[in-house]
């Protein structure tokens, strides 16, 4: 009887594993089979020519560059804000201090807010401040969206650094700032995972940039110009009735996927090299 129970669960577990990994392969297969045919050097090296969305020539360089700008900009800005938060609630504030508890509660709630709400919020701020749709507005909105992801993921890894590790630094006469640096160094692999998570969210999110970064066929040359993004580019092309343009949308999806994969691989290698001294 217990043997049967065991076997049922084994089958269930294997099934779930198959479902999740086959979903991944099906997604990859779909976008690659539909997109690879339309993927050309023009796609990644040219900006849209007139009539691009009705099947004329050109590429989506504008969206690639726009997405990369917004993602890198917001990830850096996000880290700049998240790391001090994490250090504060873990090293400076005593555990269960009111401010730390409120902070943790806030980012847990923020974490669950859908990105379209961030988009609407970013839009409201923009209007209030009299900004146009621009790269800057896009970066700020995406940053707001990924801060909870970064803080939560980094907090998670920093919190598991053993108390005795920080005590060791304190016992050597270290200040809290010096202790924080050691804790962060100990948490590098986790921090990189957090960056990856937020990078993936930032580059793939359409709702945040819809009202804030806008869309344009040219490449932005300054922060106050609107910027195109890959998800929106995919959206606009996929909504076209023309088959050719739709296929280009899949090609754009391939590009987006390749960028995310490449960043993942680079980060994994970096994390391995940086964490060789970790406990």
């Amino acid at each position, binding site marked *: 009887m217990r043997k049967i129970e065991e076997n049922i669960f084994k089958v269930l577990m294997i099934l779930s594993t198959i479902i999740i990994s086959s979903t991944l392969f099906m997604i990859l297969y779909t976008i690659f089979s539909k997109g690879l045919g339309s993927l050309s050097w023009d796609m990644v090296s040219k900006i849209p020519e007139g009539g691009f969305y009705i099947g004329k020539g050109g590429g989506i360089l504008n969206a690639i560059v726009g997405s990369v700008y917004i993602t890198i900009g917001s990830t850096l800005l996000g880290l700049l804000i998240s790391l001090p938060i994490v250090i504060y609630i873990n090293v400076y504030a*005593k*555990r*269960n*201090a009111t401010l730390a508890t409120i902070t943790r509660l806030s980012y847990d709630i923020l974490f669950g807010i859908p990105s379209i709400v961030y988009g609407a919020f970013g839009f409201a701020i923009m209007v209030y401040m009299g900004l146009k749709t621009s790269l800057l507005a896009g970066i700020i909105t995406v940053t707001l969206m990924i801060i909870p992801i970064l803080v939560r993921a980094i907090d998670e890894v920093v919190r598991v650094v*053993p*108390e*005795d*590790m*920080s*005590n*060791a*630094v*304190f*016992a*050597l*006469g*270290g*200040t809290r700032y*010096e202790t924080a640096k*050691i804790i962060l*160094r*100990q948490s590098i692999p986790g921090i990189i995972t957090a960056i990856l998570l937020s990078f993936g969210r930032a580059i793939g999110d359409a709702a945040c940039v819809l009202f804030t970064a806008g869309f344009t066929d040219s490449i932005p040359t300054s922060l106050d110009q609107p910027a195109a993004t890959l998800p929106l580019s995919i959206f606009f092309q996929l909504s076209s009735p023309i088959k050719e343009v739709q296929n280009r949308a899949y090609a754009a999806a391939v590009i987006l996927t390749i960028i995310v994969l490449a960043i993942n691989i680079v980060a994994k290698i970096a994390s391995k090299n940086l*964490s*060789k*001294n*970790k*406990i």
Partner: protein
Amino acid sequence: MIIQPHISIQNLNVHIGENHILKNINLDIPDKKVTSLIGPSGCGKTTLLKTMNRLLDRQNDVRVDGKVLVDGENIYDPKVEVTHIRKKMGLLSQRPFPLPMNIYDNIAYGQRIHGNHNKKELDQIVEKYLRGVNLWDEVKDRLKSPATRLSIGQQQRLCLARGLAIEPEIILGDEPTSALDPISTQAIEELFLQLKDKYTIVLVTHILRQARRVSDYIGFVYMGEIIEFGPTEEVLLNPKEKLTQDYVKGFLV
């Protein structure tokens, strides 16, 4: 009886939340001797140790009343710089926690955060203290490799060297051998015996035999109070208090 206390604890009371953890502790830790604190788990001996370098400050809802004088200076005086206090003491915890860096940097770290960046001096200090804990010959060819690759016994000696490299006067050990195998334990114990000429050592231990082997004085802590304090043999072999007698009874037979 004790002529020159290095650490003098006076009327110390520690509350954590609602709990009265340490009750009116008065204790003089003699200079350049090994003092062991023994007692059952949860009796407060580790807390007592942590009051000596103010690591207790890190915990929530802690209230410390009374004085801890180190070299005559009350370390709980609000004007005192806490990093300066801690620099006087090396801490050895239950399990070794090497810093996430290589062997060399682990030893040099303390010197560096206190402002010494002279490469030549650091080289000398690293060698001196690694030799001091008998680790130099084992690691001299791989100073740049991660400290975590060392065995746990080697790591504990590394942590001791790291603590000594900031040139403290006092070594605090919180059951420093509890995670180690017998051979590594012996190595650490022998080090303590060598080091007590230069340092005042305070050791928290569960192991009565260890307390007897290494210490000159023993304090028996029970339910947050110092029940008995005196020379090692006296406390272990001729305890005056009933509670101490009960606790060391297993040791006598």
